[in-house]
């Protein structure tokens, strides 16, 4: 991992197959967010209005890969970001959405759209605008190289702060007892 220089770092964030819980937790770093804003500048993020990710120092990904769109966004982040961070259980191991993995997608789709009344009028939506779901939900490290993982559902604001400050000061990020959590 490259050592980051002491200029304002560009950070982008996104939520793939996640619940925004991790982003909420990110905001949970509270007043430290002001310190953070001294050090970083946000690119594409639910916190900004930028739609396309530009070249960045750090990319933070919440959520796993559930559909084609998730994969495209992730690949774009990987291309643009020097350091990629998997934030939260879903990004780290697929999380709750991956609990569908033991069911064949075909069964899920027909159960949801064909068998149960009310939804989809008995047909599976096939609008090309809609991203197709993947056969299984995957954590992001199975598709791109991930540099840093912050586990937790969601990770605490403290854990996120610890990793970011470690990173900003050039240390290898680590979480001790109490900060490292998978739940």
């Amino acid at each position, binding site marked *: 991992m490259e050592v980051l220089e002491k200029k304002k770092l560009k950070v982008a964030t996104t939520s793939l197959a996640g619940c925004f819980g991790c982003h909420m937790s990110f905001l949970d770093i509270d007043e430290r967010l002001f310190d953070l804003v001294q050090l970083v500048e946000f690119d594409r993020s639910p916190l900004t209005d930028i739609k396309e990710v530009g070249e960045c120092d750090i990319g933070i990904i919440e959520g796993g890969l559930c559909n*084609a769109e998730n*994969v*495209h966004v992730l*690949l774009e982040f990987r*291309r643009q970001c020097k350091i990629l961070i998997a934030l939260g259980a879903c990004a780290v191991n697929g999380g709750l959405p991956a609990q569908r993995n033991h069911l*064949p*997608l*075909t069964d899920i*789709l*027909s159960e949801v759209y064909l068998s149960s009344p009310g939804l989809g009028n008995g047909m*599976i*939506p*096939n609008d*090309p605008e809609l*991203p*197709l*779901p*993947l*056969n*299984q939900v*995957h954590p992001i490290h*199975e*598709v*791109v*190289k991930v540099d840093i993982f912050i586990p937790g559902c969601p990770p605490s604001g403290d854990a996120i702060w610890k990793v970011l400050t470690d990173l900003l000061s050039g240390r290898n990020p680590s979480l001790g007892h109490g900060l490292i959590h998978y739940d």
Partner: protein
Amino acid sequence: MSSGSLESILCKYDGSPHNLLQILREVQEEEGWITPATVAALETALAVPRAKIEGAASFYSFLHLQPVGRYRILFSDNIIDRMGGSQALMERLCNLLWVEPGKLSEDGLVSVTTTSCTGMCDQGPALLVNGRAITRVDEARIDAIAERVRAQVPLAEWPGEWFQVEDNVHRRDILLGSDFEPGSGLRALHARVETDGIQASNTRSWREGLPRGLVGPATMLDEIKHANLRGRGGAGFTTGLKWEACRNAPLADGQDRIVVCNADEGEPGTFKDRVLLTSHADMVFEGMTLAAYAVGARRGFLYLRGEYRYLLEHLEGVLARRRRDNLLGHSIIGIPGADFDIKIHVGFGAYVCGEESALIESLEGKRGTPRNRPPFPVTHGYLDQPTIVNNVETFAAAALIALNGGEWYKNIGTSHSAGSKILSVSGDCERPGLYEFPFGVSVAEVLEACGAKDTQAVQVSGPSGFTIAAHEFDRKICFEDIPTAGAFMVFDKTRDMFQVARNFVHFFAHESCGFCTPCRVGTSLLRNLMDKLHNGQGSPYDFEEIEKLNHILQAMSHCGLGHSACNPVLDTIEKFRPAYDSRLLHQQFTPAFDLDQALSQARQMTGRDDELAHFGAEHGDKQ
């Protein structure tokens, strides 16, 4: 199954839970599979919980708790079979029979799948039908098999020549060349012992230890030690020390010492024990009897791999004759108290059961999981009794040593590797088969003898052994250079050594017993990575992962299987690196799975096939 025949099987096996697996085998031979009714009956009859019965049975590839069809066809899947075209042959058979590999046909008639090496590498490609080996399979034979399956011709009416198994011995030395007279080893040893000591001591049973003057057993042990005999099963442990440790191990009340012959011969590419048991069974059984004499054992087992089940009747015949000739049973060759007999235990397709402590677990009717050691089998083996486990060839050599003396034997071979070694040669050569050489023969000499041309590499001692490259062909087969359990697989320059290693990694993943974490999970991870490289998705990241797994397997595994599971990969990486580099097609990290394939079910369900319903070349190398 009629309760009567279950009754008689139970009776044959003393109604003992330790014989559970043999009972299950016999039931299955009658009924085709182990039905819930059988499990229930055995639960009562043997007083073993059903979960234990199911747990043990399901460990073994050849025991079935589900129906498997009237014809169960298993293609031997060693790299040598593959080089002989086994994959295309299997596909052909599946197409002809309208079955998917690994699945029972809808009418319940037939299933077709693969199995680990069946030990017919010199006459492959080979397959098993209901456990019987069919050798030299080609397209014509496949078509004929398909016809008979469809017409439901009973196996007994299939052409006998299909089932013919040849010895293919191309070079004989002291062992394969001897015309060993049954009993001659025992008598020669007996003659060598001063008569006075024998009579006095042997009025006591063998098992009562070795009071002063019991010269017979001591003489045998001395000869074996003097001969410098080392085990032929791979590890090369000094046989004399093993026997002595067993003999010296204390016996608790009611205990016996046990002699076990390891005929599991599961290491792919090895088939010499098959030939020894086919044509030199007397020498093997005599070696076991001599071992029993030396250590003071009264009970012996031959653990015969399931793939060699067809040898059972022949071997039982030899044992019966030896009993008639007083070479087994009570007071063998008239030595009072010299009592010993041998039972044959048939295995069921589990390579790990060749590992001696797993073998003992299996003998006891359990899952073939290697034990924690110490204690070692020589003190706590079969049912916790002092036990020696030796390879088939080791026992045959012991018989020769009794016959001709340790001094004669130790002068053959090299200083650290006395005697001869039987090599099972297969692969790219004109004359595959058995070659017996004195230890110290070079790889090049063996290649010359078997008519190998343009050889790129030789896999010595099977997947868990060594990949030897051309620049090393002057290295020698012996414990001090290249030790071997006997396999000698030849690969010429047209072969892809990466595929060789990948085949071996699949073998280990299939045969891992699953007991310890590093091997259970690690072999599967390694297999997946090798497949990823094979599928053209490899990157240097994957290569790093492979190296990491190699290390974990080697350092943390519980038994020899896990320790050596990475050997073929380590060796081929070191010696055939280009075969890997050419597969690291991507410089950047590549996804663990095929992205486009991951949309297949959604495409199928939505009927979409537009550009957005696919992944283009976007992933992969583009930075």
